């Protein structure tokens, strides 16, 4: 049960972090597009200021692979019949012998 909830929490955290960093990625994307389209940037200083590591493909691919992993984890920790009652019985307290 706790593993299952952890998976859901990981999905929510991934969504939150992705939204947070996406703001910077989108800002960088707009800035770079404006610079390329309108300023035809040439100087070293201006190019360096663009921040290549904030490329949208890096953002989307990273989030996608992490989500894939989280999805795989959720599926592998969900009980086959969909009932959480029998989920991961190893976590349940053992009866006194």
């Amino acid at each position, binding site marked *: 049960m706790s593993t299952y909830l952890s998976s859901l929490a990981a*999905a929510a955290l991934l969504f939150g972090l992705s939204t947070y960093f*996406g*703001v910077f990625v989108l800002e960088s994307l*707009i800035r770079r597009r404006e610079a390329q389209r309108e*300023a*035809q940037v*040439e100087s070293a200083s201006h190019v360096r200021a663009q921040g290549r590591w904030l490329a949208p493909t890096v953002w989307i691919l990273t989030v996608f692979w992490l*989500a894939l992993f*989280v999805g795989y984890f959720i599926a592998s920790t969900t009980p086959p019949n969909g009932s959480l009652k029998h989920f991961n019985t190893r976590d349940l307290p053992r009866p006194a012998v």
Partner: protein
Amino acid sequence: MFTHSSAILRVSRRSPSPSPTEESPPSQRELSCNACGNQCRFDPAQEALICDGCGNAQVIAAANQYRAGREYPFDPNSPETEPRGVPPAQEHQCSGCGGTVLFSGTALSERCPYCNGPMVLVPGRSGYDAMALIPFRISAEDARKRALDWISKREGAPNQLTEHVARTARTAGLYAPFWTFDTSEALTYMATWMEYEHKRMVTRSSSGHHDVAFDDLLVPASPHVTPLIRDGILHEFAPGALRSFDARYLAGFAAERHHQSVAEGFAFNAPDKRLRTKRKVCEDRAFGENVSLAVRTDDIAARYRRILLPVWIFHYDHSGRPYKVVVSGINGQTFGERPYSTAKLALVSGLVSFLVVSVGIVLGMVLA
């Protein structure tokens, strides 16, 4: 905005010799209306000195244009011999960015055209005089319209930004100092790159000699001329539009003098020039993008001009941060800084994140 008041004047000086430092500052008589004696300002639309008092227009007769096209040799290995011009009695210096400008004619501002910081009067420093300039062709009203139009088309900008800028922006017309350099360099290069060969990554290299020439390379002659000003609006500089320096074109505008020697300018702009040189070698030798290139300059010949180029700068604040939009005084090309709406970007980012995370999770569950 500029306030109209008396001119800051310098002692007039004229030299008959065609030396590199032949600029002469505007005298009181040159900038006065010949009808009523008031101060005049240069009007880009009419290309004339206009008197705001009586409306009289004095057309600026085309001066001898030989100096506009003339370039002067520079040898990096020889000592500096270029004489400095006569320092003005007073200059305005910005307390924020340190930029120094002269206000000619009716233009006098308490704010720095570069950064909008407060300006104070300081004793004038000796500098190098400009040889040519391109006069303002875009009027203040036209520039303002272009700046607002540029801001209104920004993606992800805060709501009501255009109205806010229209209400609060401060306009400054400035002649910014530049050099044009013609250089011819003999280089030795060494290039290395990686490529696949029989499914293996191998390192290749090439070396040799190469000649690189630049014609009328535009280089800022002041640290206050930022990449925003140079790359944003002046990369389509046309040397044919240059005119011999005439101080009357400066009437009503701020101007910064050249304070760096040619050698200092060469050194200051070395990183950008190295980048351009490498790019040119890569193009000429058809190297790919992923090439590591080392270049050594064996010999260099250079010719230069000191010029002034016109630019309108709009300063505005948003959420306590200063921004500026620059409009070329030559062709009206506009570029600038702008704020972003975090709420709008977060909304788009949230939607994209939701889609990507959903698809990733579903696919992960299917694969499991």
